[in-house]
């Protein structure tokens, strides 16, 4: 390696040697940014990130509301006392109410009176009927102290002792159905996410191939000066990493704005019937801060997927070229 010592004397300029400007030069990128038609790719990645964010956000909202409903409903027990021949319905209801109040872990017991029970049935039966003619069961709603483990079997035994026609319902079946519905929503969300990611990979792969075809002369010259595939791939990759991140930030940002905006809309409408409907359906209709973090992470992830897909395509294409 004594050759290194001779550097600089390849051409002996003698008297011709001029003063050298010491300024550093601004080096243009080896693969020019303008040569990669990135706008379409940024748009695709942005749209995909937006769709992915909407999906994830909706899934987060649904599972949060479902959890809220479930905890509401789970803290409630409904007891139904049916009229039975030879028994006084009023007295049975009162006895069950008393027995419930005596239970540990029950914070509130509310029996529906005959009139209230009739009101509940009015939408179905109309107002013209006399309740006395109908064997209408009585409902007792009991609120459970949150976090109290309740022995439902024992409770059931106790209540049938007091009133043989009493049946205790803790809404377990309903909660199960809710849970499976929520799970289905989450599963569908994952399905959509998978499709979005596959579509992103395909778009990126096409864009990468296009960029490499457009820059074929550059690839050839780089081969001439002894650049390896890794070096060449990295020249392209930095552009795609940037395009992917740009798309991710735009798509994810717009999605976050949409969620933030709908949150404030829900805020404006709260108290109105429409707002209350929404609140009933989707809870507070707001992503928690952790939800926004999830969306941000997801946007970065899609940017990374773009880079990885581009990298794979680059090496595959370079292997074909030689």
């Amino acid at each position, binding site marked *: 390696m004594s050759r290194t010592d001779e*550097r600089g004397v*390849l051409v002996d300029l003698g008297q011709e040697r001029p003063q*050298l400007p010491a300024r550093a*030069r601004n080096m243009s990128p080896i693969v020019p940014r303008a040569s990669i038609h990135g706008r379409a790719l940024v748009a695709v990645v942005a749209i995909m990130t937006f769709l992915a964010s909407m999906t994830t956000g909706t899934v987060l909202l649904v599972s949060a509301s479902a959890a809220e409903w479930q905890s509401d409903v789970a803290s409630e027990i409904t007891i139904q006392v049916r009229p039975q021949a030879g028994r006084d319905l009023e007295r049975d209801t009162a006895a069950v109410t008393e027995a419930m109040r005596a239970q540990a872990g029950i914070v509130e017991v509310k029996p529906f009176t005959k009139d209230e029970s009739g009101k509940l049935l009015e939408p179905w039966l109309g107002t013209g009927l006399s309740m006395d003619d109908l064997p209408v069961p009585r409902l007792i709603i009991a609120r459970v102290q949150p976090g109290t483990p309740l022995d439902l079997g024992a409770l059931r035994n106790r209540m049938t002792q007091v009133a043989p026609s009493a049946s205790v319902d803790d809404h377990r079946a309903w909660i199960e159905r809710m849970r499976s519905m929520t799970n289905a929503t989450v599963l569908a969300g994952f399905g959509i996410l998978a499709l979005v990611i596959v579509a992103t990979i395909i778009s990126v792969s096409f864009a990468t191939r296009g960029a490499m075809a457009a820059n074929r002369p550059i690839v050839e010259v780089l081969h001439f000066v*002894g*650049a*390896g595939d890794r070096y060449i791939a990295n020249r392209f990759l930095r552009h795609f990493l940037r395009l992917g991140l740009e798309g991710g930030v735009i798509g994810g940002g717009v999605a976050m704005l949409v969620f933030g905006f709908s949150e404030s809309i829900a805020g404006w409408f709260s108290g109105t019937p429409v707002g209350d409907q929404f609140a009933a359906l989707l809870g507070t209709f707001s992503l928690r801060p952790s939800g926004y973090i999830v969306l941000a992470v997801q946007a970065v992830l899609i940017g990374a997927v773009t880079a990885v897909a581009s990298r794979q395509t680059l090496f595959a294409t370079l292997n074909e070229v030689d």
Partner: protein
Amino acid sequence: MVRFENVGLRYGLGPEILRDLNFQIPPHSFQFLTGPSGAGKTSLLRLLFLSHRPTRGLVNLFGHDISQLGKDEIADLRKRIGIVLQDFRLLDHMTTYENVALPFRVMGRSESSYRKEVIDLLRWVGLGERMDALPPILSGGEKQRAAIARAVISRPQLLLADEPTGSVDPTLGRRLLRLFIELNKSGTAVIIATHDIALMDQYEARRFVLHQGRLHIYE
């Protein structure tokens, strides 16, 4: 340094363009490669540069049988070879300076470490005023000099030049020949493909003559 044994080359199903090539190129040697247009000079240079594979025979470069080499090893060998092609292959979006500095950049050297060398060489080949020009506005001769500068800047162990004086006037041709001779004296083996008899007459060197696919060597 380079050894060819019974090498033949054909394009696709066509006739053999090069036949039964047997020769060696020792380190520090200087040779002209000549022959009529279409004789296969460019094809032979491409074989030497590993951008074509022989259809038969053995090519040994820097002690490696090239049929055994992978892509990365070929890239590493190419770093030791400089090539000037007839169509120059400059990158249009880079200045003359950047084009000439490209081999250093690919090696991962910092700009400050080679700036002086590149500027010196550009001045020597008469491109001192054109350093910041983009290739599309250079004349044919200027492009040729930039391509030569790029090939020699990293002082390759082997320099291949295809008609390097084709687009320049005789005075500049002599100057460029002197550059190749200087390079050869500092240790580079040089092969210049040319059909310019006047150029060859200026320097006593080995002559490889291609005729009807075969190579004749005149020491």
